[in-house]
């Protein structure tokens, strides 16, 4: 009973094994990839382990406070930013081992030539609640 974030990157993750950009796949390969991701999410819904999944657009801006009474400053997007999140899935599982197992499965999504991408996913634990009994 712990939540984990499976984080997918546009940029910033180590290079995957099957590293061909998506725009160079065939339409069928793209369909197969998307079907795989959806089926994966559906499976987690039936196992009672799914919490949330979202995809993020590539563009975005940096925003910060600029002092009392002034509008926030926006800047970017920065093309050179090293890390760019593509999306996430939040799962609620019984163990860290299960989280790793699921991330491994998600990373096997098919890419070019229908072969697994072997994409690197970041697995991050959520903070839990403080246990009552500690001593």
């Amino acid at each position, binding site marked *: *009973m712990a939540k984990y974030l499976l984080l997918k990157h546009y940029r910033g993750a180590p290079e995957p094994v099957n590293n061909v950009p998506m725009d160079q796949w065939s339409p069928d390969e793209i369909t197969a990839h998307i079907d795989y991701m959806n089926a994966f999410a559906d499976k987690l819904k039936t196992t*009672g382990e799914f*919490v949330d999944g979202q995809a993020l657009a590539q563009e975005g801006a940096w925003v910060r406070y600029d002092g009392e009474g002034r509008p926030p400053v926006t800047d970017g997007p920065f093309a050179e930013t090293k890390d760019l999140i593509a999306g996430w899935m939040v799962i*609620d599982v*019984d163990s860290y081992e299960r989280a790793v197992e699921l991330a491994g499965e998600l990373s096997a999504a098919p890419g070019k030539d229908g072969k697994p991408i072997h994409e690197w996913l970041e697995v991050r634990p959520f*903070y839990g*609640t403080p246990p*009552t*009994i500690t*001593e």
Partner: protein
Amino acid sequence: MVDEALLRSLTPAVLGILVRRGADFAAAEDAVQDALVEAVRVWPDDPPRDPKGWLVTAAWRKFLDATRAEKARRRREDLVDAEPEPGPAPTSDDTLQLYFLCAHPSLTPSSAVALTLRAVGGLTTRQIAQAYLVPEATMAQRISRAKKTVSDVRFDQPGDVATVLRVLYLVFNEGYSGDVDLAAEAIRLTRQLAAVVDHPEVAGLLALMLLHHARRASRTVGGSLVPLAQQDRGKWDTRMIAEGVGVLQAALARDRLGEFQAQAAIAALHADAPVAEETDWVQIVEWYDELLALTDSPVVRLNRAVAVGEADGPRAGLKALAELDDSLPRHSAVSAYLHERDGDLRTAARLYAEAAEKATNLAEREYLTRQAARLNN
């Protein structure tokens, strides 16, 4: 207003009766839930004279309706057409059997917890989902799979009380604080279990929960954790402590010591000290030794090192700590505390910061960060 506590306390007995009458567990469980919902709707205007009888009748009718609908679809057996046998009078054994079923070893911990809270506790799927911060649909699937997993388990098959206790312990110790008070619910379910099975470890767990729950009001201030030594003991619930101690003493008198009784004994010694300085650490160390003999867990060894540090001084605590793997959760936090007491503030500050990074919950991280900051300033 409907007496929800009463409703929920009747849940296992009503479910037990349906199963005894021949309803399969999964369908019976759904029917009982439907009957509970109807009770909440109907009772305020039309309170029943016999709440349990009302629920049994309503649940059995829901079960028949569902089975008929199912039968219309799939042409199933004739269970439906037969008038319900009155069936054997429900016994407390039914409640116990439900606990066994919901904590069946074939279930994962999270499934066992969810199923127990629904089928024995009478909570709705939505309430359970909220308590564990997952979507309702996800929790519904978890529960329905759990029911499928135990569908072949015979209802009267004897189970292991220890697996039930582990599930109840999880409910008590690892719930979020939402609308449903999971700690109070765990106590209610453990109390109910203690009423139907005579087992010193059930009593031990109940005592452990009561003794910890009694300190709840003092455990946080404004959302920040307050360590035991600094808690405002005036806020401790003395009646609950007295009850916990009473339950524990009766259990210990039976001379069948177990893990939960030993843990409760440690909690009782803390509860017994009017001020932190008067804590009987020597006896606490002895109880940790008992606990280690029962279960040689690294976490117990770590907590024992803290107790040794209090009983025999920080150097002795650090020596006990040195024998443990430093990758253990909370190892650096304990080490930081013992170093601080030993006067090595620089090492303590560094270790507190390290411990903060390794904390598995936000409240602990903030507490540990604050300790590092206190020593650095």
